[in-house]
């Protein structure tokens, strides 16, 4: 029964979801919406499991004297954010109130840290492009040429080099690039349908033992 009941739940849920797509009449019509709400509730509760796992993991590492500094910093950061969040809700009614200590951490720690991580992309793109874009084959050369044209066309400097550069770059983005993307997307969509059917029919059960 340990395998049959979960499979039955997933098969029935899938069947109702498909019916709800085609049948507007009650009780099927609003079913999709209800299921999305239930899913939000389940993921919210699952977050508690995740937080427990994270804290437990790092607590065990501190006890084993493994990476004490990193694990202590993580637990300290979690506690400070949690305490200040609760305090902000009690004092200001909302953790995201403009003058709250929680917003202070958000504006002066979270935002700069996140922006910094994203900014790393600029450096990594430069090193990855330098390393990978070699004219080894005809296809690689075409890729290189397209990349150079699009990079120039997307900045004012390209328009100054040649007035038609932005339009040419846009043409590359809208025609050959889109054609390739659509081809991949059709394949992915079919692959997703295949995978979904395999899960609904019980042929594939990655979530079960």
């Amino acid at each position, binding site marked *: 029964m340990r395998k049959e009941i979960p499979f039955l739940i997933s098969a029935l849920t899938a069947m109702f979801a498909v019916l709800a797509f085609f049948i507007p009449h009650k009780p099927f019509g609003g079913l999709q919406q209800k299921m999305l709400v239930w899913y939000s509730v389940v993921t919210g509760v699952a977050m508690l499991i995740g937080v427990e796992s994270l804290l437990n993991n790092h607590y065990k590492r501190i006890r084993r004297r493994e990476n004490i500094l990193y694990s202590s910093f993580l637990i300290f950061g979690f506690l400070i954010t949690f305490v200040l969040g609760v305090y902000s809700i009690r004092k200001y009614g909302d953790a995201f109130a403009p003058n709250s200590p929680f917003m202070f951490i958000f504006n002066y720690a979270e935002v700069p840290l996140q922006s910094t991580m994203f900014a790393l992309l600029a450096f990594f793109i430069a090193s*990855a492009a330098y390393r990978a874009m070699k004219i080894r084959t005809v296809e690689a050369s075409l890729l290189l040429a397209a990349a150079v044209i699009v990079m120039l066309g997307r900045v004012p400097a390209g328009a100054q080099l040649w007035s038609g550069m932005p339009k040419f770059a846009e043409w590359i983005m809208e025609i050959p690039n889109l054609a390739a993307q659509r081809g991949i997307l059709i394949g992915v969509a079919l692959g997703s349908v295949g995978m979904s059917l395999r899960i609904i029919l019980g042929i594939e059960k990655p979530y079960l033992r």
Partner: protein
Amino acid sequence: MFGVLMAIILSLNVQVFDTPNDDGTSITIKLPWQTGRYKSFSIYRGTSPDNLKLVQNFVVGETYKDRGLKPGAEYYYKIVAHTKDGKTEETDVIGPVKTVATWFNKNRFGILVSIIILGGLFVYFIEKARSGAELFIRKISGLEAIDDAVGRAAELGKPIVYIPGLLGINSIPTIASLSILRKVAKKAAEYEVDLIMPNADPMVMTTAQEVVKEAYLDAGRPDIYNPNNIYYLTSDQFGYTAGVDGILIREKPGAVFLQGYFYAESLILAETAHSIGAIQIAGTTSTTQLPFFVAACDYTLIGEEMLAASAYLSKDPVTLGSLKAEDYAKALIIIFLIVAILSKVIGFFDFTRLLIAK
């Protein structure tokens, strides 16, 4: 006289009818907006002709949908149009209009036909595979390289890091990633290599723990399974990226698997893994991140190659049959596209109307 004439013209141009293909809770009102004569409309509704109340003011546009109605009930309407020169024109009471809940959304007929054809192909090829027919699948070098990657990590005495992407267990790329994880974990168990898997979603973490435990059991090495190696980091995109980068630099794995759905962090992870000299096998269905993986990683599974992994790796006839069905479905789509494009070019019929779901 002129006012009466305009009211008659307005009445002739307003249409009120039950919204087709819905659950019977709305009525559609078509308004003569395109004449350019009107600034806005006011809609009055009631359950009897002498009990009309204002429902909505300042309505603009060609269509107004009156929602939240009772299925099977009858309603009466009056439309008051406000002209651009400050006058008002009224229709007579229109109705009764009855709300009807439909049992089948006719706009989605094309989708139903597509599902039936696709489903039929699946059943046919799965039965064909079950009956023992040989089904050819081309070589996918990224999946063939899994054994070599794990072997390399074993030789170097280094762990493997498996990164399942950012999405939750409800997403298809994540489920496909778990299929690949099963194979990687089994090989890691055979070679006694540590498998480290940081997760961005708690449900993916719990499922992954089960998958890896099963894989170690299959390999006959449940004793070396360590659940602490599969843990939740954070759901925040760049918090996760920073955490994983830290793990890569500290643990210095021999092989890194990036299998799942990624956003902007893909290149940061791939470049960091490259900088520590690890072999990388990536796979994603995200078309925006594929170029970065192709540039930075040793092997990349492109789009549906990743979704085909479970069938490819298990060599199970039934799942291989479903792959074959996908291929034939793709062939049908190509034929349909050619026919539809030619048809539209010569002005015969617009096939795309059949497939847009409303």
